[in-house]
């Protein structure tokens, strides 16, 4: 019985991930990706990561995917006649080979799962994954990466502005 929620949400995630890859319509693809993201967000909540859950919904689903939609609408590429077409066969072959390799490796893991990992969750503190704990970690052990993040964002911001300018001043 306890498998049911996992299986249901996982099925939703996998189905829409496949839909993203196979759909001819880029906007439908984006919407299905949003659904994948939301179902993963529910997983995050169930896995005791409530802050990550909020960030996933607010940043990924709420901001990043809206940007994708915005650009697609701006360029108007998402129309009914999507740009999927015949692919060069070698790429398809490479993709399938890669996929098989990855799946094989995943299967390997399932078979040998649990090396070093407990099969079932360990007991956790009540505030596991809470914003307080995340904040404390970010400002103690992970202070340096946290600061570096600001550099990454700054560089990205400058880059996006430079690329988007119509002409250099």
């Amino acid at each position: 019985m306890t498998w049911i929620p996992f299986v249901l949400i996982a099925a939703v995630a996998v189905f829409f991930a496949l839909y993203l890859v196979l759909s001819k319509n880029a906007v439908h693809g984006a919407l299905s990706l949003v659904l994948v993201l939301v179902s993963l967000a529910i997983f995050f909540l169930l896995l005791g990561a409530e802050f990550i859950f909020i960030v996933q919904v607010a940043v990924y689903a709420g901001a990043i995917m809206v940007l994708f939609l915005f650009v697609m609408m701006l360029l108007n590429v998402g129309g009914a006649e999507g740009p999927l077409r015949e692919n060069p066969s070698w790429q398809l072959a490479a993709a399938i080979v890669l996929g098989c390799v990855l799946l094989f490796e995943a299967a390997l893991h399932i078979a040998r799962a649990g090396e070093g990992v407990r099969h079932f969750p360990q007991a956790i503190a009540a505030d596991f994954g809470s914003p307080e704990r995340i904040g404390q970690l970010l400002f103690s052990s992970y202070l340096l990466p946290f600061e570096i993040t600001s550099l990454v964002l700054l560089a990205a911001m400058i880059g996006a502005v430079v690329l988007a300018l119509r002409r250099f001043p």
Partner: protein
Amino acid sequence: MSIDLTTEFIKQNLWVSAPVWSLAAAAALVLLVGAFRPRSTHSLLPALGLIGVIVSGCVTVHASQIATAPLGMQSIDSFTVVFDLIILIATAIGIIISSPYVNRESLARGEYYALMMFSSSGAMLMGASDNFIMMFLGLELLSIPLYVLSGFRRLEGISQEAALKYFLLGSFASAFFVYGTALVFAATGTTSIAAALAANSGAMLTMGVGMVLVALGFKVALVPFHMWTPDVYEGAPTSVTAFMSVVAKAAGFGGLARIVAPGLSPNWHLLLWLLAAGTMIWGNLIAIPQQNIKRLLAYSSISHAGYILMGLLTLSRDSVAGVDGMSAVLFYLLVYTLMNFGAFAVVIVFAGSGDKAEDIDDYRGIARRSPLLAALMSVFLLSLAGIPPFAGFFGKLFLFSAAVQAGYPGLAVIAVLTSVMGVFYYLRVTVVMFMEEEPASGVADKPSVSASPTYGFVLGALAALVIVVGILAAPVLNWTAGGAESLTAGRPAASASVRYCALCRLQRFISRPFAFDCTELRNLRYR
């Protein structure tokens, strides 16, 4: 758990990350000056950037003497210092080479230099990271500005195409990095590189490390993952290509060194061996038929990645061979910086406004018109080919001998053979420049190519350095050996305390059957 924000903690944090933030602060300053000062002052931006780079170098050296406490994210040992200084040298050359180019192609200046310096700080971060999270951030801080820089000639399709290709494949590689590190975390429960690799716990860890290696292999353009290189190198603005070919590669190898340093399990040796061999063979093979000089240099940079990976491979063997190999790698990175920048600078000068003349055919008989430039180009190309007495030769020699020392004679043989292949295509350009006649029609409308004073100075200095570093390799090698030692400090070794002596090793090397004739080296003093 309470937040430990003591003064000592903040101070250590500050000094450990000093190399990165000093360069980033300089970048921000350049950006602000570029944005808020009138256009007439923009020619001072590269000077400002250079000052920032020099200050950052001083801060790095100073910080290495202050910061002591390991915070588990980033370390500032002697490897970091040597590596950072190499990156800073590359950045400085990159800025100098860019400044006339940026003017000629009228690109936005403040942003250009700022992004370049941000990228360098990311590179420095990668070479200093002790934690996968840190390395991921370094990788992105390196890559994101590079994506933008390759698309900097926004009005030209070829540049945008390069930016898109680089971006998509680079992000693909980043996704591999994330998933690989996620697997490592799943297998070991830690994101610390040393702790994770020490755990040695089976298939999941192996696959994770493999995916991380794939991602870094992308960055340094190892052979199965090199597809983006020629297109991006050709499409990006030439100064960016030069910068990218040096700094991104060095950063990737810095990251690889941090991963290999704790000692990979022996399973990896074969794989790295194959990667190195494949990269050397394929890169050199495909370089031969290239018609475009930037694509030629792109494939040449792929093959050089193979040589460097060979040096890195020794690091995974044991710590004595590791010090040898790693110091050879650092030495080679430095030399490669000098000669590759030199070659690309000549390409910029020859190409003329709008980067028109970039085919090898355009170089035909160019020695008649501008003999000095042609001679300088020959110096850089011969050095890249590994012909004595230029620094490239010594760099390769050290790498090869380190490989033999560490027990990879086969790989060294492949390296020597592929170097011979390399000589062929580098020489071809030289031959085209000096021996062939210029096309008849060209003489009339082509004025003699002359370098601006900046390029004259840079090219002269680089050529001089390529020769001087080659002849005075000993102190440089000593310096890089100091960096390499700290990388293997934590590992058990047969004779870790014995400081590495290049001369002894060289002599041993020369006694081997496939030795080069390098008797003049005996007279050099190493330490």
